[in-house]
């Protein structure tokens, strides 16, 4: 990575970046997020409407923030950006470390206090 600021970043967008970006190139070689676990159904929402580019925040990070103006699961983010889930987890870790996204990890069945979620799902399905 260069540290020359925006002009360097702008050389590597769209077609200039080539038709294929290897997943680990997007994460600059990192396989694990700096923070968080990010289950496939962890829900993510952006904390800001816009993020100004800064060092360590790439186009994929900005794309996630744009997408998460509406609440999305980790799996949905991966599907919409057409990147592997492992890559998305690393990028989300960067964003969470900067408090640019808020994440809600799913509840386990054993942790549910009562049957209300089951009943809500059954009623919701019947009403579809």
């Amino acid at each position, binding site marked *: 990575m260069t540290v020359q600021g925006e002009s360097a970043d702008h050389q590597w967008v769209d077609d200039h970046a080539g038709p294929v970006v290897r*997943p680990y190139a997007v994460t600059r070689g990192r396989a694990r997020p700096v923070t968080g676990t990010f*289950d*496939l*159904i*962890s*829900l993510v*929402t952006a*904390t*800001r409407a816009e993020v100004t580019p800064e060092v360590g925040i790439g186009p994929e990070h900005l794309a996630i923030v744009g997408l998460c103006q509406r*609440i999305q*699961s980790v*799996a*949905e983010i*991966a*599907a*919409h950006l057409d990147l*592997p*889930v*492992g*890559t998305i987890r690393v990028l989300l870790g960067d964003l969470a470390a900067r*408090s*640019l996204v*808020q994440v*809600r990890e*799913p*509840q*386990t*069945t054993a942790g*549910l206090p009562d*049957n209300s*979620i*089951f*009943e*809500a*799902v*059954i009623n*919701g*399905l*019947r009403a*579809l």
Partner: protein
Amino acid sequence: MDYGHSDRPAGAPPLPTAIKILVAGGFGVGKTTMVGAVSETRPLRTEEVLTESGVGIDDLSGVEGKTTTTVAMDFGRITISDDLVLYLFGTPGQDRFWFVWDELALGAIGAVVLADTRRLADCFPSIDYFEGRGTPFVVAVNCFEGARSYRLDEVQTALNLDPGVPVLLCDARQRESSKEVLVTLMEHAMKTREARRRAAGGN
């Protein structure tokens, strides 16, 4: 529970609860069809890239033997209410992707095992897996045209299922039919959970 992300506007509603249900079964049995039949959008596809780390990571001679595999999962979403979202995940069809199943099954509220009576054995691994993990499941026999119809108790016997496991017929292409499968699963999962709580409390 709240980890205090102070940038979130104070008036913003809390994030909804997400739950997941798995749709398993053999290759071509209709998993993605069922996910699509009940989801609010067409099924989405997400991929995991898996690296089989070989022996001797620092050994350059091992590099050419290092392989990556991409496992695709189709999934869909049903928004139950403002604070509850249900995700349906079709499991990868091949047995060698068990480790992906482990991630998917973690925290899953239950599973639908789709069966085709012409190839009943294809769903054995799924049934074994959920029985072993204690994940509540139902068996839904997808009624393909041209397949001989069997009575449900014949299927139950052939699969050697616990009598408590619901077995039902379905048409995975039909929204109403797939909804009924999910409702049956949720009722079964709720009963299973209550029975386990009673058993745990009674000792």
